[in-house]
């Protein structure tokens, strides 16, 4: 499990923005008033968490903006940020979005699993090892001033939650940037991003349809748990699909 020196680096105010920057931000999401989750099934990756106590701003036609004020981690790749200069672009073409993941601190939450059962020990142990695809572990910092000169306090154990990605402007990140991630740990962020966005290797409907009539040449069991199993099927044309079944 990484410690603070492996993970964080000091960032000066004048430094270029970078993937892995951590900043204090207002994160906005829009929704219809009173909109609830889509169903009852628990899916730790697909389930979008409700952030603590958003400020709400009304929009016309039964819509609203929910604003969460919290720390967040920049996940936009650094070379993508470098290219966001918009030189020679017209004013109406200008934009400045960075994708960020909200940071969830341990003291604020009680992690729950299926059926709302609290499972702090199991969850935090897995998060510390970056086992889940949807989180990046952020270790505690005993003295924040060692990474953010002038900032007082202790940073608790936390994780960046990739399920809550949203966008903010560059200038907002620059104004309230706390610190950044080391180059080595940026690699872990990128690994987690790759896992998160490719985890759903489950077959899409059209892939399944294209397999109809083909001979299955290989069946590879991938993994299974108490409530699910997954297998990869390879067709005689070399195409492949992964199928997941749930046992309950």
């Amino acid at each position: 499990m990484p410690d603070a020196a492996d993970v964080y680096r000091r960032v000066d105010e004048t430094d270029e923005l970078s993937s892995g920057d951590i900043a204090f931000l207002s994160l906005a999401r829009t929704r219809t008033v009173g909109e609830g989750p889509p169903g009852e099934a628990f899916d730790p990756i697909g389930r979008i968490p409700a952030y603590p106590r958003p400020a709400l701003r009304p929009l016309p036609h039964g819509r609203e903006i929910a604003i969460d004020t919290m720390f967040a981690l920049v996940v936009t790749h650094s070379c993508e940020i470098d290219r966001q200069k918009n030189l020679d672009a017209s004013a109406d073409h200008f934009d400045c979005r960075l994708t960020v993941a909200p940071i969830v601190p341990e003291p604020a939450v009680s992690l729950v699993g299926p059926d709302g059962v609290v499972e702090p020990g199991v969850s935090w142990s897995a998060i510390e090892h970056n086992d889940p695809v949807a989180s990046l572990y952020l270790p505690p910092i005993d003295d924040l001033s060692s990474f953010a000169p002038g900032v007082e306090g202790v940073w608790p154990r936390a994780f960046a939650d990739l399920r809550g990605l949203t966008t903010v402007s560059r200038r907002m990140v620059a104004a309230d940037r706390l610190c950044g991630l080391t180059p080595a740990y940026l690699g872990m962020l990128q690994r987690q991003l790759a896992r998160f966005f490719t985890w759903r290797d489950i077959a899409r409907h059209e892939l399944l349809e294209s397999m109809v009539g083909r001979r299955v040449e290989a069946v590879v069991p991938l993994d299974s748990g108490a409530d699910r199993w997954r297998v990869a099927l390879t067709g005689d044309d070399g195409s492949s699909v992964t199928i997941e079944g749930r046992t309950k």
Partner: protein
Amino acid sequence: MTTLGSIIEERHITYAALAARARLQPRTVRAIATGETPLDRVSVGTIRRIAAALAIPVAVILEVDDPVHPGDAGQTRTARLSAAVREVMWPRGATPYPYPSPVEAGGRDEIADLTADEFFSGMPPIDARRG
């Protein structure tokens, strides 16, 4: 003097009277009101009882200031960030809210055992034209 101490003084009530109303020990109330016991060492339940007995919001006793906002020009950047860490990362007096764990039920996959270098080592070379 603490905010609670000021309120008790303004209302001309005794520690014992307030303690009786809040169903607490008088010495507990006195220690909180005088600052002898710091607020961060007092249980949320005790604060709630005192607030209810005085018919005031819990936040008044907790001396919660206006929440800090990103970009607040009324504070320096470092003061703003220090306040944000205190308020956002260590929410005082708030019960931790249930939050869906990101841990999957199916257990670890093979990638979870790979370092970032190992994970990316088999990737094809990056197209230089794409930066």
